[in-house]
């Protein structure tokens, strides 16, 4: 039997961001509005700390997306 499978695992996504880090386009779709942004830091006491800036955005085609930027690697991820 396989082990437990996590749900809501982050997946890579292509995001174009402004200089201040605010996303401008997600997978080529332009952002219409930013609904919310928040920062999460955890496990700072370990060798693999987690630092993420989340953005909840609405694209011009009406999709509601939650993306985050891993502040350690600079990569963007999509998460639901």
């Amino acid at each position, binding site marked *: 039997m396989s082990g*437990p499978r*996590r749900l*809501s695992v982050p997946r890579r996504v292509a995001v174009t961001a402004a200089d201040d880090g605010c996303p401008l386009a997600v997978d080529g779709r332009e952002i219409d509005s930013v609904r919310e942004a928040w920062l999460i830091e955890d496990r700072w006491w370990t060798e693999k700390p987690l630092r993420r800036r989340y953005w909840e955005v609405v694209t011009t085609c009406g999709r509601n997306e939650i993306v985050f930027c891993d502040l350690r690697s600079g990569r963007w991820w999509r998460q*639901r």
Partner: protein
Amino acid sequence: MIVCVLFPRFALATALGDRGELLQAPTALAPEPGGAQQVGEVSLAAEAFGIHPGMRLGEALARCPRLTLVPSDPAGVADSWERLLVRLESMGAAVEPERPGLVCFDARGLLRLHGGIDGVLSAVRRAMRSPARFGVAPSRFAAIAAATRARARRPEIVRGGSDAEGRKRASAFLAPLPVALLRARPALADLPEALERLGIRTLGELAQLPPTALADRFGATGLLAHRLASGHDSALSPRPASEYLREVLELPEAASGTQLQRGLEMLIDRLLARNERRGRTFRSVVISAVLVEQGGTWREQVVFREALSDPVRMRLALVPRLEYLPAPAESLRLAVERFGPLATDQRSLLDDPAAARMARLREAIRQTRAVAGPDAAMRVLEVDPDSRFPERRAVLTPFEGSSALPSPSGAATDRADRRR
């Protein structure tokens, strides 16, 4: 003819792992968290300071201030010991494990198969694949005493059967040995100290005392000690051949509290979904965990009041045990120690529609798994519903009919709260 196989300092050597050089220094197993403040097995160098297993920690440190204390590894010891026992059983020996590192079996059934006691010992040595000491004697206690005197490649053999002649030989062999050997029997652990205070230093001196005097002074333990010193012992009671069924859950983030509870529930579901169970109930199980920061391991045996296959009742019995965990865990294991009879539900006088629906659901799950494998029926289990990281909140785990009830702690929480 009883054969005793002894692995000296088995628990200490297992806990040390690849730090074997510590066996050359004064080293002892640290007291178990929450248990009595007594040291466990000790190295030879620690024995030279007068430290022995079971000694109070304060006294041990007073005798040797540079004593190195090693966290015990009960789960690792149990795993290694089980592997060795299975190797012995696979060559036909009906074993009675005394404690990890010490096992006895009756060699009578194997003598002709291997051409005598020397052949049996050679076969055992090959099967174990680890250096051990062997003692052979007519009684179990004499065999254990012989194993403690044996050298690595030279077994100590006391010839004779279980008749009067054999007992006489065993008694003669035991006569010059110290009474401290009685510590091998847990019921007699405290007796040697009292005997030594009274000037009785050898088992021969003990055997010469009248049993009535010993009974008068020490009660039943005195009589037992006299019987052992005289070459008598009770017959072996070999353990039933066991099956090893275990599920392990690695916890990427050190877990405790609700997370650990959810992990245990998941392990119960996975264990119940194993095909090897073949519909049987569980009589006793073992929960074990690897603790964070190399804090060793933790192990707890749970014997159910009655054999169970109901995940809800198993949870009720097992989850409270997690409170005894001394530190957050890196991995959690659940193993079946003993199976019960086949699970059979007693029918009630009146048909319960909910029970009937549940039975149909279970049957549907069983058939689905038979066709598409154990991962065919899954459910979402909230592991850490309040985590700020979405990927930590829930996992997919095997679906068990009666375990699919909503849990009170799984109530919806405001997403905004999670972000703070």
